[in-house]
């Protein structure tokens, strides 16, 4: 059984994503989000201060190409960067928070991701074991990850290997995406060793892992210590490395347990208000707003009562939440009373500036229905009636720009009316010069005809097109200035819309 299990066990594969300029790129991204105008060709210097001395903690690739190095004094860096330059403060907590957010974001590639703290530079590890059917190939996946990070303003190096240590070593060693893929060629610093140990290795001209492998295990242990052997074994898969997968943070939740069943509405409202206040404090601490909240009441002698609310925009406004929950509390059937109240934020989002807009959406949806407020998404379709779709804001969010798919949709470059009639209307038409259109009891002289434009269904939707959507379409310019959008059928002419 053991042998069979070993045969069927998937081959372990780890993907390491290293960020050599993480601090500088985080600082630049944050500054831009806060509205700072940083020119693309400006050198970004992340500055730290210690004992009154200001030094460069990190710099962007452009500054590094000019000769700026980490640890350099700020005055020296300023002298080197004579062009446009931006100096930003070092904020390690923000960098760590963003790295964790990045690792959580990477869970779209695999459910198991983790951070590697001892690599020298920030590294996110992704366990892609068993994901072969989802991702076409490892090089393609690496390219996809690098492109995604580049789109977000981060330089990333990637490497795949059978274990975490090897993947980290390859990713941190690589200066170009397609450099050597063997651990032997990696510098010894990629084994995540102590700096003093590395210096001792350099003294005896051991610079790469391959040089180290020429030594016997006994000499390595005696010269450089047991941790070096452990790192070496981990890199070659002889020893398992303990990895701690990143677990999502628990969602903010608060609860109140009463001494006995509470049936008074005032008391329940007061308790709910307090719970909302506590939840909002947690949300503010996380710098997030709730997109969806759930209030659960455990009732005595009655089934559990649950009310779930979806907000149009992330909200951490206690007054607004209470306003949305209050009508539900009045309708609650609590039996003998409520024994416990629990309020949780099921979904969260980054707080937006337009908090008033979110409250407006919620107010309208609470009265008119969840689908009352919509936004419009374009669809690549020649048929005017199908060139768009309506998306409820509560489900899809109200920021159309947030969806990358919306940007990719191309608009059909053709003439389309500004008004489409709800249904086609019959018209009697005389074509030719001096022709006329009789529509809605009014006869209009036509100055010019434009068309026909033949609109056919896409080959994927044969049979699905309504009869009024395809055919030969004409534009008629009437003498009174009105433009009509007409379709010619075997039964006659139909007016479908106009430019109004």
């Amino acid at each position, binding site marked *: 059984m053991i042998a069979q299990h070993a045969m069927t066990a998937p081959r372990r594969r780890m993907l390491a994503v290293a960020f050599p300029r993480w601090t500088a790129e985080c600082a630049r991204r944050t500054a831009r989000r806060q509205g700072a105008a940083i020119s693309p060709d400006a050198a970004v210097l992340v500055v730290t201060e210690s004992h009154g001395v200001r030094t460069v903690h990190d710099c962007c690739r452009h500054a590094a190409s000019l000769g700026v190095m980490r640890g350099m004094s700020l005055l020296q860096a300023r002298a080197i960067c004579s062009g446009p330059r931006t100096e930003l403060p070092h904020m390690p907590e923000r960098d760590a928070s963003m790295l964790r957010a990045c690792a959580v974001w990477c869970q779209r590639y695999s459910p198991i991701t983790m951070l590697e703290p001892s690599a020298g530079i920030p590294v996110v590890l992704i366990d892609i074991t068993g994901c072969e059917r989802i991702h076409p190939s490892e090089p393609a996946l690496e390219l996809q990850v690098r492109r995604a990070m580049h789109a977000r303003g981060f330089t990333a190096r990637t490497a795949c290997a059978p274990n975490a240590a090897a993947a980290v070593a390859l990713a941190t060693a690589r200066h170009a995406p397609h450099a050597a893929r063997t651990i032997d060629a990696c510098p010894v610093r990629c084994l995540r060793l102590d700096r003093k140990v590395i210096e001792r290795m350099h003294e005896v001209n051991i610079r790469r892992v391959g040089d180290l492998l020429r030594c016997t295990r006994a000499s390595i242990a005696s010269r450089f210590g047991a941790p070096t052997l452990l790192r070496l074994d981990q890199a070659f898969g002889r020893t398992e490395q303990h990895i701690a997968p990143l677990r999502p943070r628990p969602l903010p939740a608060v609860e109140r347990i009463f001494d006995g069943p509470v049936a008074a509405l005032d008391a329940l409202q007061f308790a709910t208000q307090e719970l909302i206040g506590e939840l909002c404090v947690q949300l503010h601490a996380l710098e997030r707003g709730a997109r969806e909240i759930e209030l659960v009441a455990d009732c005595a002698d009655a089934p559990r009562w649950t009310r779930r609310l979806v907000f149009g925009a992330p909200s951490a406004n206690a007054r607004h939440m209470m306003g949305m929950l209050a009508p539900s509390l009045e309708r609650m059937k609590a039996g003998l009373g409520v024994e416990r109240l629990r309020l949780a934020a099921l979904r969260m989002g980054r707080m937006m500036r337009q908090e008033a807009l979110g409250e407006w959406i919620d107010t309208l949806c609470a009265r*008119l229905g969840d689908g009352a407020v919509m936004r419009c998404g374009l669809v690549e379709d020649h048929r005017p009636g199908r060139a768009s779709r309506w998306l409820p804001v509560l489900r899809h969010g109200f920021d159309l720009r947030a969806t990358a798919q919306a940007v990719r949709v191309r608009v059909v470059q053709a003439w389309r009316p500004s008004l489409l009639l709800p249904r086609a209307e019959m018209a009697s038409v005389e074509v030719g010069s001096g022709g006329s259109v009789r529509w809605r009891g009014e006869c209009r002289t036509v100055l010019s005809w434009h068309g026909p434009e033949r609109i056919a269904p896409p080959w994927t939707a044969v049979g699905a097109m309504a009869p009024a959507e395809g055919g030969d379409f004409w534009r008629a310019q009437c003498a009174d200035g009105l433009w009509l959008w007409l379709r010619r059928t075997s039964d006659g002419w139909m007016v479908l819309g106009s430019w109004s």
Partner: protein
Amino acid sequence: MAGIPDEIRQRAALLVQSSSASLPALRCTAGKDSHDRRSDGASDELPLELGVVHEWMWRESTRHATWTVPHGVMIALCWRMLASASDGRVAWIGRHAWPVPRACVRSDGSRQLLERSLFVDPGASSSCDERIWAVQQSLGCDGICAVVFDGSGCAMVASRRLQLAAARGDGRPAVLAMAVRPWHERLCPSAAATRWAVAPAPPTTQDAALDERGEVPVWQAELLRARGALAHAVGQCTHRIEATWSWSGASDRSDASNACVDMRHDVRHDVRGDLRGNRRPQP
């Protein structure tokens, strides 16, 4: 036409000045002839006052169940509003007032109007209470810079409520409020600041730019009523807003396949100097 005679120009200018105090909704430029307006270039200013309700009607000769909404002018004005309001959304309330989404996209690919638009469906109930309530909520929301709504069946009391909601005040950002109503309601009382009639502009052979104007839909909005204005200001002048639907970028206008549709956003307005007779414009 070389231009309007100096006497008429001066009288028109005087008329606008005298009525400007009571007619704050319009910042009119006097004495511009329709022929030389195009070369004159349009100003980027919104030709309507913010914080009040403006009513718009499509001029129709017969009454239909599906009345026409002047979407072209609405879209042009919303584009103009977005240009001045860096952060704000446009609310389209009532399915009848919703434009064709394709018309909200410029030929240069700019989709700002569509991206910043939110469409409210108050339901298909015959009562307009829900619709008016939704409009009132929208006018009170600071995140919304323009509201275009279906104002059909809106009674005087409701329109007054909306007028008060549109005023906002307290240093909050002003809102552009536009109601679209059917033509058969043109005589209904309303508290709206202005009432406009929109109609397609017929191509004129006298127009020097016939080649350009004759090939694209052009709309003209005529002021029917301005609340608080001097009687003669409306009676003797015709305030016009003109919007043009153009296919910019098309080398050959007859070639529809190469053309890209765009709205001309140069909403223009002028005071036609029909001052020789004291004739009121016919609605």
